């Protein structure tokens, strides 16, 4: 029997409220299938299961608030024999069985008060009255804002308390990338055009091949590097707050696929329909202030990650090239990294590699490798 526990959906989550089960005992489930919806302080999240099997017992009911790590349900592994039934079935009168069907109640699960413990119509009616209320609605917007601010404060305080941050910045010329992007988008339908953010994300993923100590998790006193780059994309939410769900395996995907997945991720983040693997998988965070943003951002690392890459707005600024001052689009890239795992020299190598990659956008468009790992495989 396998325990299905409430996963941590980010450093700022300590507990969650089960909103809904999508499965019932006896259902066959596949690895990666969404089996429940859990409300965190930030959003309602679709929780996936990480084993194939058959659902055995649902231990937590909709409306229950439980800490991370609580066993939500038990699961029979494939081939495992079902345990013997917990109780002997009692007879059910035909009228009771009909009424149970109307009310959506399992009559075999109702205590019988009739002759020899048989289940009567009155038992069914009583069981219906005793049923828990329907799944609670997600937290109201105002409460959500308060809860989210608390959760962000807790995670960021922990980060600043535990992680010795260091910060680096580099101004990167974006002329080549901007021209390449204009040419790429020219003539394409508006629905297929790419945003500069996609090039930046791809360049981060490829630059990390040179400095793997910036990509992974620091847990229990040790750093564990991750081969795939699951970029946590910081997405601001309307009305305040932010989430940073994973764009999976950025280095392995072509740019047009990344653009589609990024658009979908932003849409779902704002609609509150993210998946648990997206919340727990990011191996590094990338925050991009976009074209309305400030010049630079110095981020706070999201534990247990060990680095955060920030991009300010891409703007035309003075730039010295070949001994002359020119007006060129540039972007300020920053790195906040964890001194327990890396140092400024290695961090600087990362930013230099990032700068060089962004001078060759065509190569970025062509560079993708076979997926290294399945999303959600990280603990």
């Amino acid at each position: 029997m396998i325990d299905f526990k409430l996963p941590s959906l980010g450093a700022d989550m300590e507990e969650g409220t089960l909103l809904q089960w999508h499965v019932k005992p006896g259902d066959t489930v596949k690895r990666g299938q969404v089996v429940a919806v859990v409300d965190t302080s930030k959003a309602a999240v679709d929780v996936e299961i990480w084993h194939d099997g058959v659902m055995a017992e649902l231990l937590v009911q909709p409306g229950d608030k439980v800490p991370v790590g609580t066993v939500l349900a038990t699961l029979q592994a494939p081939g495992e024999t079902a345990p013997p039934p917990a109780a002997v079935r009692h007879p059910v009168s035909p009228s009771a069985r009909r009424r149970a069907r109307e009310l959506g109640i399992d009559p075999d699960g109702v205590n019988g008060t009739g002759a020899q413990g048989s289940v009567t119509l009155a038992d069914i009616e009583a069981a219906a009255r005793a049923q828990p209320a329907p799944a609670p609605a997600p937290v109201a917007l105002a409460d959500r804002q308060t809860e989210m601010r608390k959760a962000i404060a807790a995670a960021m305080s922990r980060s600043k308390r535990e992680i010795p941050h260091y910060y680096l910045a580099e101004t990167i010329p974006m002329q080549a990338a901007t021209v390449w992007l204009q040419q790429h988008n020219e003539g394409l339908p508006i629905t297929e055009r790419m945003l500069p953010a996609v090039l930046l994300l791809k360049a981060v993923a490829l630059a990390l091949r040179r400095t793997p100590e910036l990509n992974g998790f620091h847990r229990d006193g040790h750093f564990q590097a991750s081969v795939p780059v699951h970029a946590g994309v910081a997405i601001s939410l309307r009305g305040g707050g932010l989430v940073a769900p994973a764009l999976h395996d950025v280095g392995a995907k072509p740019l047009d696929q990344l653009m589609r997945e990024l658009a979908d991720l932003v849409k779902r983040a704002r609609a509150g329909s993210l998946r648990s693997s997206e919340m727990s998988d990011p191996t590094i965070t990338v925050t991009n202030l976009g074209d309305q943003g400030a010049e630079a951002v110095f981020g706070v690392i999201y534990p247990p990650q060990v680095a955060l890459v920030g991009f300010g707005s891409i703007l035309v600024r003075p730039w010295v090239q070949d001994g002359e001052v020119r007006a060129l689009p540039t972007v300020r890239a920053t790195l906040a990294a964890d001194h327990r795992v890396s140092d400024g020299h290695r961090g600087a190598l990362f930013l230099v590699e990032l700068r060089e990659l962004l001078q060759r956008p065509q190569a970025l468009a062509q560079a993708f490798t076979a997926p290294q790992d399945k999303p959600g495989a990280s603990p």
Partner: protein
Amino acid sequence: MNTDRQTLTTTVLSLLAAIAPELEPEALNPERPLRQQVDLDSMDWLNFLVSLHQRFGVDIPESDYARLVCLKDVVDYVQARLPADAAGAPAQAGA
């Protein structure tokens, strides 16, 4: 403002409100930069332009983005490219 333009402006604002639900249309100055008045990031702005394209069937090349600054610019741009009686009418499927 004639009726067609009013209808067009209302439709444009409804598309904007679908992306920024907190929008208060009456508080918008149509001659001030839209993105200084409504919090729209790059993805929101792209989605707004996509919704204009899908609603009105108007092509918006990337080279024209810089012309679309104020609400008035957006309405002018769409109006200039619409058939005379099509303000507020849905575009053909797939347009």
